[in-house]
């Protein structure tokens, strides 16, 4: 088995994935992101953030303006969006199909969101989409059929349909959470 070597070929590390998605989230929430904001959000030091950002800037994924405000480049946005979507899909897959509690599903999704291939994420999306409005029996049949087929999509991840599905799943998870509380 030499699959572990593929970990080195991932576009971003676990830490870099969190930095990218955090910058994106901060932009969505407050309209800007500084090193201190990213550090506070991730619960790490500014020094660590600065060292990680150096690599991300060098790769053209993060841009810093003259006021030291951070933003994602187009490629950075694409990667962050892809990671977010994968997290939502995998979390839903673990929760809705495997029956794992949502909290554990979220933690496990976070561990692998940046590691899984686009093809696997798309397959998870197709499966979840097919299961959305089915009864228990239909779900089982659909799962078997889905396992026999494979995704042949070659468009960049996430495509619009997958993105829309992720948004629906996110709303569903929020509804479950508010019902529980």
């Amino acid at each position, binding site marked *: 088995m030499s699959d572990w070597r593929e970990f080195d070929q991932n576009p971003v590390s676990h830490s870099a994935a969190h930095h990218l998605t955090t910058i994106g989230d901060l932009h969505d929430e407050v309209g800007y992101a500084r090193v201190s904001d990213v550090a506070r959000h991730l*619960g790490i030091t500014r020094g660590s953030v*600065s*060292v990680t950002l150096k690599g991300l800037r060098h790769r053209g994924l993060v841009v810093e303006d003259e006021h030291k405000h951070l933003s994602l480049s187009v490629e950075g946005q694409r990667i962050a969006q892809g990671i977010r979507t994968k997290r939502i899909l995998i979390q839903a897959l673990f929760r809705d199909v495997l029956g794992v509690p949502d909290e554990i599903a979220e933690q496990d999704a976070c561990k692998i969101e940046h590691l899984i291939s686009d093809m696997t994420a798309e397959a998870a999306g197709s499966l979840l989409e097919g299961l959305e409005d089915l009864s228990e029996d239909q779900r089982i049949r659909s799962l078997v059929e889905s396992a026999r087929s494979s995704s042949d999509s070659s468009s960049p991840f996430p495509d619009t349909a997958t993105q829309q599905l992720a948004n629906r799943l996110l709303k569903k998870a929020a509804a479950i959470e508010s019902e529980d509380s």
Partner: protein
Amino acid sequence: MNPKITREETIARLNALLAEELEASIRYLHLGSMVQGIDRLIVQKILQENHEETVEHAQQVSEKILQLGGNPSPRIQLNLDGRRYSGQQAIAEALLFEQAALDGYRDLLEQVDSSGDVVLEEFARQQVAVESEHVSQLQMLLVESPVGDQ
């Protein structure tokens, strides 16, 4: 105390600065081990001196936290790889976390400025001065300083 910042917030900020200093001290040690090239011995000496200073700073910050009635409880998460550095790369990396520490002390100074806590205010001011000096020294080593441009 300045109504802008409570004692608990001050302690939290100092703990964040303590984490910065402790992480920096470990990073300096690591960089010193990983630096290579013709200027290795010179850069190692600079990194060692800075390591010792950051340890001193960490001790000072810990003292401040204790004086305020808090507990030094820094959150540190470091994953250092086995990458080798040239002297210039090592100094450039050190500049990143020194600048981060300077920014942290500047924020603290802004918060405690005119707070009435003269000792804490003076401490923050002194740390800004010392860290600014560090940053300038590192910038000069990287020829990033405006010195000679005028």
